[in-house]
């Protein structure tokens, strides 16, 4: 949190607070596309904030840039490709699935698979033990009844 604060503050001191506003597109459909795009792209200065949320001046510039490209008729993908070419995968809030991120994307499945295996093992042993215990209990009970 401290780091975010420090970075947010750093950007604030540079700019004052540059909230989004005048850079809106007149066409509401295009504007909606721009908003959707800026939610998928991160602010390059602040941690954990998207372009949509960031108060940094660079974020405001990029919001303007996105609108210019959209107004010029670019598709969403080509706007993204344009920004990735300039700033790298770093700008994408959702990292692309490629060789260097396989581990990132598939690790959760790996955890579930390994953990699930362990749980299944424990459960099957516990079940066998339960069966043995009840068998043993039946045996003991059966014998006492027989003696009586």
């Amino acid at each position: 949190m401290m780091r975010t604060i420090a970075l947010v503050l750093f950007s604030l001191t540079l700019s004052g607070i540059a909230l989004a506003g005048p850079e809106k597109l007149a066409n509401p459909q295009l504007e909606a596309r721009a908003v959707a795009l800026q939610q998928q792209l991160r602010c390059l200065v602040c941690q954990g904030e998207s372009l949509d949320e960031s108060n940094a001046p660079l974020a405001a510039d990029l919001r303007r840039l996105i609108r210019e490209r959209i107004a010029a008729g670019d598709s969403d993908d080509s706007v993204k490709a344009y920004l990735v070419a300039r700033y790298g995968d770093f700008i994408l809030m959702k990292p692309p699935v490629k060789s260097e991120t396989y581990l990132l994307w598939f690790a959760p499945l790996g955890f579930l698979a390994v953990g699930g295996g362990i749980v299944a093992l424990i459960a099957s042993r516990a079940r066998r033990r339960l069966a043995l215990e009840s068998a043993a209990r039946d045996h003991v009970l059966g014998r006492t009844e027989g003696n009586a």
Partner: protein
Amino acid sequence: MTGEVGLLALCLALALAIVQSLAGLAGARGDGGNGAAIAQGAAMGLLVFVSLAFGALIYAFVTSDFSILDVAQNSHTAKPLLYKFTGAWGNHEGSMVLWVFVLSLYSAFVAFAQRGGTRLTCAALGVQGLLAAAFLLFILLTSNPFVRLDPPPFEGAGLNPLLQDPGLAFHPPLLYFGYVGLSAAFAYAAAGLITGEADAPWARAARPFMLTAWIALTLGITGGSWWAYYTLGWGGFWFWDPVENASLMPWLVATALLHSALATERTGAFRTWSLLLAILGFSLSLVGTFLVRSGVLTSVHAFANDPERGFFILLMLIAAIGGALALFAWRAPKLETGTAFHPISREMLLLLNNLLLTAAAATVFVGTLYPLALDAWIGKKISVGAPYFAITFAPIFAVLLLLVPFGPRLGWRRGDLHSALRILLPAMGAAAAAAVVVLAVARPASAAGAGAFALAAWLIASSIIDAVRRNRRRTFGWSAAASALAHAGLGISLMGIAAVSCWKSEASEVLAPGQSLTVAGYELRLRDVGEARGPNYFAKRADIDVVRNGRVIETLSPEKRSYPAEGQAISKAAIRTTGLSDLYVALGDERGHGSWIVRAYLNPLAPFIWLGGIVMALGGAASLFGRLRVRVAKPLAYVAAE
């Protein structure tokens, strides 16, 4: 003088911590020596001297003693008294003293309560002494808060204005009570492994510490999220920021631990799970401290800039985690007894709870550290933001929430699924109704939102059913109240999170006085923007009338504050809450001719996010209260599933 008293107190505390660890570990052999009495005395002495050092630091901050470097760098005479006081821990050195203070507080509790018998207490005190010694060494060698400055400056550099907020003033102590509370659970786990006494009484002895830590973490995370919401100026409440993740991971593992320990408390089942989770929980607290304090988060290269601190924490990390895990690998296999249960039983659900919570924590761990690792290894920079966690973390958590209501409904060893389903039938009805209503009413229609509300209704309704049934059968005790509250709290938070994520409305316009913007049926009319003054800041304050159906219902006054001492500006949002929704207004830049950017949001059900956190913490408190009322030596009376 204050500085020297504080420094001397820290040195004496270090000596006592070493005595405590040696005497404690000697006493753990249980050979009738006086190790126990010495360790207990040392723990009390440790608390006294650490309190003295902490008090000296606070005194230096409150009296603005700028001959102490830490005070000169982080305080200012014009600051309100509250922030002079809390500024003592609003910096690296002070926060480490707070850390050790909380640690010594817990260790005094352990010494005083003597839970679980002499040997276990001694071993736990020994481990806590080791931890305290390591942190005190860290403070004295790399982060001495009492370094003098000659000549002292006339004025201090001030405290980050974002931290000058009542919410954040008490956020660090709460979070530290959580992080460090897990050290007590860790100490008990290590003690259980050392003495071999890691059975049901062990879990009962350690549980109050686990619960205290969990309650504090829950409240700390809730408070931090609320603070981010109202200070960062755009109404977000969770950022998947590495520092937030650093507090979420121990919380997830501590939650798993509380559940696994339920089984351990009863019959000693899952004791290796419980031990491992206790070790992992505190390890993640340490990892969090390392991440936050070493500077690796902003850049892997920051680590090289201030290597001393980072290196020291890394060493502590390896020693504590490696040592504990080695101890675990060596001793744990001899402790496991094996339990017998059917796949449809409460044990099985606790096991699934553990699986899903640890998988969720591991996912957060990977998402947080992967960018750092990738940058360090191949120099490529990527971002792992909210969309990653929405795809990976959210489904795991959704499955967990789906299973939650079955837990309290299934019996130990062998449960009756048929009767559980029958009892939970009304909750399923509530879930279906919630989904239908949400799909019919909420616009834009959102399947994810409807699903989340169904899950929330499922959680809340099943908690109510559980409470009502147990009350009717007179088996509604503290532990039943705990699970009902904690699980319902999850549902309440989930509703808030889903509603804000799916149905937030926002609007931003450049407004001149007299002009207005509309958000979700509210008209916000800018009356004017004037000057305002605080104790140590100047502000531009906008007066904005909230108009509904042609009538002014309230005037909101968001501010833009600038702090001359610190040379920083922050935005102070104004929030009008009805309890069911927040109208959130922030003031932006001036755009010439007296017109200003105004940004407004309507966040439906936003207060539920934090209300749920508080309800969960109340659940924890109920469990804690129930446990403390029962003497440890006696077996606890458990609420059997019907």
